């Protein structure tokens, strides 16, 4: 993986996912290691995302790397009208690796083509966010002890949720059975379902969250956003239908864990936080280990 950019989850193979997860496990055991002392990591956040940026910066700092960058396009030369290409070319001469988030879809792929250093995509609009996907795989493996042959339920906005799309694509490598719970308007797009079919795996679609509770090993919750609906009445009808409460966990499997990419709004009630099923806060912490693993292997240190 040395010097290879990570733009889409499909850029890496199954073996490479597993290599990153194994390495992340190592960093979980020993998070502070001074192995990137000679490196400069640039974090270019053309739109704010405090959570992702801090997670990357924490990962880099724990490995001894220097971090440079900006957290908002208004505080950079972009606000003076500089092209993305020029910004990337300039930053390349100051750093050994670029982590970037940008509101335009495809911007990270373009950056990786003009950059002389590897690029990690930390989210390009609604397109890809591969490090979120890898930390989700890490969380699934950690809570279930394996990745193969699990029943994974995705709940909420399956149409626009990029994390759902990447996770489905990645899990197609692991003999997963998919349980897709969403309002009819927000069903998983057909090209993603085609990916499941082409992998000879099965998926089931539901509109009622309660239906998947007895079968799921993982319940992956996502937020339903008002702006996704053209008809506000449709939003009002479904907005409370996909809220997970502690009482709904009654019939679930003991190994079942609830994941959520965060931030949550109301789709998981706070009474779930204290159950043994809640895993979303540990999930966020796992992001640091996975990002440490990515920085170390792309810079060729591990």
């Amino acid at each position, binding site marked *: 993986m040395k010097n290879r950019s990570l733009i889409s989850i499909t850029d890496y193979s199954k073996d490479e996912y597993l290599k990153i997860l194994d390495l992340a496990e190592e960093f979980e055991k020993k998070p502070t290691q001074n192995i990137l002392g000679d490196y400069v990591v640039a974090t270019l956040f053309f739109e704010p995302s405090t959570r992702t940026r801090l997670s990357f910066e924490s990962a880099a700092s724990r490995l001894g790397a220097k971090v440079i960058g900006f957290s908002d396009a208004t505080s950079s030369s972009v606000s003076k009208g500089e092209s993305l290409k020029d910004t990337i070319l300039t930053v390349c001469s100051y750093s050994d690796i670029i982590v970037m988030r940008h509101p335009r879809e*495809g911007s990270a792929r373009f950056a990786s083509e003009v950059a002389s250093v590897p690029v990690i995509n930390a989210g390009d609009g609604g397109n890809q966010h591969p490090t979120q996907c890898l930390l989700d795989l890490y969380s699934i493996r950690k809570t279930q002890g394996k990745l193969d042959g699990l029943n994974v339920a995705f709940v909420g906005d399956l149409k626009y949720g990029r994390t759902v799309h990447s996770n489905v694509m990645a899990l197609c490598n692991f003999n997963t059975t998919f349980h897709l719970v969403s309002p009819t308007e927000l069903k998983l797009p057909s090209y993603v379902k085609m990916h499941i079919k082409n992998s000879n795996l099965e998926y089931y679609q539901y509109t009622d969250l309660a239906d998947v509770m007895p079968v799921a090993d993982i319940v992956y919750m996502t937020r339903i956003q008002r702006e996704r609906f053209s008809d506000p009445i449709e939003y009002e009808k479904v907005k409370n239908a996909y809220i997970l409460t502690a009482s709904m966990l009654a019939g679930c499997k003991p190994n079942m864990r609830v994941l959520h990419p965060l931030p949550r709004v109301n789709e998981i009630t706070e009474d779930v936080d204290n159950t043994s099923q809640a895993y979303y806060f540990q999930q966020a912490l796992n992001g640091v280990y996975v990002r440490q693993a990515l920085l170390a292997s792309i810079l060729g240190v591990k």
Partner: protein
Amino acid sequence: MNNDNIRKELVVSAIENGTVIDHLPAGSVFRVVKMLNLEGTDKQITVGINLDSHKYGKKGIIKVANKFFESEDVNKISLIAPSATLIVIKDYKVVEKRNVEIPDEIRKFVKCVNPNCVTNHQNIATRFSVIDKKDLKLQCHYCEKITGKNTIDIL
């Protein structure tokens, strides 16, 4: 020679050497001229529109003297003229005749359907993989969204 061919000879003169692009949908001729970048050339070009065709009713034809296209160049016109035939003429004789084929990759000529795609906001040449040739579907190399038959916008 049947009557149809004789009449065509009269309307659009034969060329000694060069390329004939035949069986174009009548409405696509000017776009094909633009796509093949023929507007700026000094070659002799004959264009016919709304010619009678047994197969298609009305058709268009473009003859370019002393010009031989690279396959890749001509294949891109399949996006708007899938029925087009390419005829290579040398010394008034047909030396090659084939249908255009949809290529595996298309660069520059198509606009990405996604308004939030980076190619619609920065100075970047578009690039697509053709993921379905029968029911034309192009996947953007950058934003990964799919531009379909009905949303194709030729730049």
